[in-house]
């Protein structure tokens, strides 16, 4: 019974799966993907653009993974460790709400807009832009700065509101337990 066709196939399937490390269908799907990629690659070669294409294709992954990502990850870590940040208050006292997201969010949004629109903002395509539209790219830097300014201002206002609310809540407790807290601070 154990040597009939279906069970032999099943055994071969299991053997392949064990050797390969996943369901053989996984391999089949990936081979189909590589086949289509290979065919598209022949079209790229036929178009006579393969060198630039490969450089930009692989370069796109490298620039994102090894340049862009480390860049924003390191700036985020640096911002969180701000050397200019005040020392933590002694434990037991309610700390001020963290300001990191009020810095992080507008900076990231502004950075995203710059990442997408840097040719316009920095005027890098000014010549082709003028040939096409009859206009120049000069307004874009100002517009980006304006949006950036609005984002940071909005964030600062949100943080101020947050701080005020925090003080209102924290004040009674501060009175009771934290004589070192600044009594003269304006707290509405």
């Amino acid at each position, binding site marked *: 019974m154990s040597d009939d066709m279906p069970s032999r196939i099943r055994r071969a399937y299991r053997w392949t799966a064990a*050797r390969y490390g*996943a369901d053989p269908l*996984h*391999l089949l*799907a*990936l081979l*189909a*993907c*590589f086949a*289509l*990629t290979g*065919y*598209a690659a*022949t*079209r*790229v070669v*036929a*178009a006579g*653009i393969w*060198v*630039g*294409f490969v*450089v*930009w*294709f*692989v370069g*796109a*992954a490298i*620039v*994102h*993974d090894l340049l862009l*990502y480390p860049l924003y990850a390191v700036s985020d870590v640096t911002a*969180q460790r701000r050397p200019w940040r005040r020392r933590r208050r002694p434990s037991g006292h309610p700390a001020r709400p*963290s300001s*990191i*997201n009020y810095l*992080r*969010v507008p900076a*990231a*949004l502004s950075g*995203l807009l710059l990442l*997408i*629109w840097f*040719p*316009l*903002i920095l005027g*890098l*395509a000014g010549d*082709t*832009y*003028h*040939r*096409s*539209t*009859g*206009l120049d790219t000069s307004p*874009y830097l100002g*517009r*980006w700065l304006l*949006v950036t300014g609005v984002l940071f201002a909005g964030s600062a206002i949100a943080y101020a509101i947050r701080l005020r609310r925090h003080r209102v809540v924290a004040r009674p407790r501060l009175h009771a337990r934290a004589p070192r807290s600044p009594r003269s601070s304006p707290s509405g």
Partner: protein
Amino acid sequence: MFGLVLLAGIPIIAITGMLSYAAYDPRVPDNDTTPERGWLGFYLFDWPTYPASLYRVTQGVHVVLGLTLTAVLLAKLWSVIPRLFIWPPARSAAQAVERVSLLLLVGGAVFEFVTGILNIQLFYVFPFSFYPAHLYGAWIFLAAFAVHVAVKLPKMVRSLRSRSIRRELRTGLDATRPEPPDPDGLAPLSPAEPTMSRRGVLAFVGGASLLTFGLSVGQTMDGPLRRTALLAPHGRDYGAGPNDFQVNKAASAMGVRLAETGPGWRLELAGARQAILSRADLLALPLHTYVLPIACVEGWSAEQSWTGVRLADLARLAGIMPGTAYAVVESLQRGGAFGQASLSAGQMSDPRSLLALRVNGADLSLDHGFPARIIVPNAPGVHNTKWVRRISFHPTAR
């Protein structure tokens, strides 16, 4: 979560992109920008003239949705990047093969977004023509995307089910706990104190998408909303006059001189018989007015009221029965792409397809194609040839 959004969005971008390729009518002679496409253009069909705003919508969606999802793509890549540095890089043959496909997936995604985003800003720094690179790159990306979805879909469903979205939306920073260690090694082993709740991350990325969307979607609109496109290449305000709308390819840049568009200008028709017409001759023919959009592959669009002679009437003047011939339209422009474009027999016989002489009640301005330009419903902008000097008719093989 970001995966789910991309799973919904990328097929829309892919389909609208493929439609844009079909919109160029590459099967009509001289229109194909990628003649070596082989089987990758298997889906081509005659591009319709109804509805007139179809291309305006599909290409607007393609470009604006692509811009909108840039933030989601970056967030998705951010959330999985620990996998890049995992050691050993593969524990089995299956993992090794899959990692190769991930290079195609990530490289392809970034390649498609970057070439698209640079192209709409007319920043042609890439060492290749945009059309073949963006098309073939799309196929490579989509192949890897389809396999990635097939492999990861069960995992995505499981991880989405592992948390209640409603509860997460009610969970603030104080109650946010780090992800428990997972078999994929995505969750950090010694996580720092959380600085942002999960709902905060969603709002952050969603807000970034919304911001990009809000600052660019205006370039697909008419009227005062167009001014909201603060960061979009073609959302600019030209003024309030009849000819004050988006220009693509200024006359001066295309080498079109005022003298050759003056009284000496003639339109040449070449079909079963020849005809030479001055602008006054054209104005004496029956004129028709239609409100039609111009929609560009770069995503922007604008609707205007065009007045001119039906292309079908010009075909009859050249001794051609409308619907039996495609046409090659040649421009006065020197250099630049699309100085010549072919229109299908179907496009030539639509009654709203015009050789426009006037726009919004005024003569065309030089930048908009004076003395005469093509306007065909639902055709991509570059096929609406400006400064037309010659239309030749060629019987279709069918």
